């Protein structure tokens, strides 16, 4: 039987406010254990949490960027569970009256656009971190650090609209891109400021009803998300094909072994006994404020991509790649401001630059080549000072040293040879040394020319102007 996957994602995003959601402790990452804490986030008796207004503003901004409706009235609730990652034995979250609902985002998959629904966006506090010796089930005891407890989070819940692990990955990338553009979070999955759980089920293709779902946790990278979902979908199909049935449970992704494993439930499933948080007053969200935040939304990835296609005449593919992160898009535009041939800039940024960043495991923000230097290098090619081939050598040197291209060209003696006389001498030498190849060419073997040109390039260490070399050969052959 043919099956299809039904996937919904619950994404947690840490907001980059200066202080925690309900107290004035810093949100700074790291720090000695338990030093970023105060009586409020330690849950000491008699303290009163007060909502950080910036958290609400950031959450509204993110929700608007995801096309959500912002609630008129919203409140916080206590989610009760006994687990030492929170000192209070409950987490302050939002249950039945979340900040925002009914949003969507569009993903591009196999050349077409799919609209993925967003059920809700709500605010909550992050939990502390537990340090185990070995694994959570075998450790003799655990150590607790509450530095992260109370860091503001938004949870973004999608509709079960995703139909494959690939769609889930693309959705997640798009979500990260949008949130990052709004400036409310760094969205670094590896550092935990972007986290994701998935609800997964399978059903016969075309069926209306959902199958029994499992919840998958502990996917800490885009690759892990894709691998975990692929594994889980296939696992469920195998169970059904063998006549078994899916057990509703929470499973954890084991990155090392490449499998999902059932987690012993830390709680009788979802028995969280939510009730309204008595220490926080309700929110009545001012419409004018919402409209101000909406009006101040920055250009989002889809708009920027459209602009690149429209104003720069770039292919859709280039526009998508270049606008994936704000940083890359800003870098690209800074280059184009100094060298207006957008497609040439795009080729270098998506080609050589991306290759070098990848090889050195670096982000665009760490790149030592300034947009000015990149533009100056492109002009050196236009002026004929260096060939396109030599430019790649120059570019790599710029990448490693951060030096200006002119300095590199001068110091390394990479200036292109355009002196016809000098090139002609080499061309004649090469012809004299390779009489057989010359004959082949004259007998109609076009490819022979490539070899001869190559020999000239070799003799001049790539510095001969290739157009002149070609022309001189053609004149002589």
């Amino acid at each position, binding site marked *: 039987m043919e099956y299809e996957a039904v996937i919904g994602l619950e994404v947690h995003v840490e907001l980059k*406010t*200066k*202080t925690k959601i309900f*107290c*004035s*402790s*810093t949100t700074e990452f790291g720090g*000695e*254990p*338990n*030093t*970023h*804490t*105060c*009586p409020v986030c*330690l849950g000491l008796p008699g303290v009163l949490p*007060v*909502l*950080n*207004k*910036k*958290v*609400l503003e950031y959450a509204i901004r993110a929700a608007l960027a995801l096309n959500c409706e912002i609630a008129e009235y919203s*409140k916080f609730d206590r989610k*009760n*569970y*006994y*687990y*030492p990652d929170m000192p209070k034995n409950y987490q302050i979250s939002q249950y039945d009256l979340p900040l925002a609902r009914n949003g969507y985002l569009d993903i591009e998959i196999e050349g077409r656009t799919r609209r993925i629904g967003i059920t809700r966006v709500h605010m909550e506090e992050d939990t502390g971190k*537990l*340090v185990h010796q070995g694994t*959570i*089930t075998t*450790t*003799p*005891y*655990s*150590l*607790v*650090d*509450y530095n992260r407890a109370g860091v503001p989070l938004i949870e973004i819940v999608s509709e079960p609209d995703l139909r494959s692990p690939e769609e889930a990955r693309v959705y997640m990338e798009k979500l990260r891109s949008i949130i990052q553009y709004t400036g409310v979070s760094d969205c670094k999955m590896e550092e935990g400021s972007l986290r994701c759980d998935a609800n997964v089920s399978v059903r016969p293709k075309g069926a209306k009803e959902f199958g029994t779902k499992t919840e998958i946790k502990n996917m800490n990278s885009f690759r892990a998300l894709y691998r975990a979902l692929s594994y889980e979908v296939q696992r469920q199909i195998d169970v059904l094909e063998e006549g078994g049935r899916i057990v509703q449970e929470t499973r954890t992704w084991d990155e090392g072994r490449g499998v999902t494993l059932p987690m*012993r439930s*830390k*709680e*009788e499933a979802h*028995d969280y*006994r939510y009730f*309204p948080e*008595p220490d*926080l*007053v*309700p*929110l*009545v969200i001012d419409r004018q404020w919402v409209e101000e935040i909406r009006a101040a939304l920055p250009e989002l990835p889809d708009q920027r991509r459209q602009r690149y296609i429209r104003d720069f005449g770039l292919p859709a593919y280039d526009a998508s790649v270049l606008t994936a992160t704000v940083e890359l898009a800003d870098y690209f535009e800074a280059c184009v401001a100094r060298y207006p041939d957008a497609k040439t800039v795009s080729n270098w940024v998506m080609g050589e630059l991306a290759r070098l960043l990848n090889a050195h495991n670096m982000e665009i923000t760490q790149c030592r080549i300034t947009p000015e230097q990149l533009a100056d290098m492109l002009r050196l090619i236009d002026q004929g000072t260096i060939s396109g081939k030599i430019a790649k050598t120059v570019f790599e040197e710029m990448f490693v040293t951060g030096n200006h291209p002119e300095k590199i060209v001068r110091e390394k003696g990479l200036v292109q040879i355009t002196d016809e006389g000098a090139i002609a001498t080499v061309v004649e030498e090469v012809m004299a040394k390779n009489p057989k190849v010359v004959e082949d060419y004259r007998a109609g073997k076009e490819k022979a020319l490539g070899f001869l040109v190559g020999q000239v390039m070799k003799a001049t260490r790539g510095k001969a102007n290739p157009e002149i070399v070609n022309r001189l050969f053609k004149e002589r052959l």
Partner: protein
Amino acid sequence: MLTIQEVEHVALLARLELSAEEKKMYAQQLGDILAYAQKLNQLNTQDVPPTAHVLPLKNVFRDDEAGEHLPPEKVLANAPDKEGQFFKVPRIV
């Protein structure tokens, strides 16, 4: 009165270990409390909007400005057990 199973369920959620005696006692006591609260259901609340808070307050905010942290020795002063600057807790699952 609650059933013994219901008492065991909430005891597990609260990580409480109860003797057979205690389970019986709490089944009675919790049942009495719930029965008392049930009296509220006799009121007609048709025209009363749900109330999460009794005070007529809304939109109380603080600014995103850093304040003082508690010194580590104070943070850990009431910890039943600690290791270095960490709270130390029994294995959880």
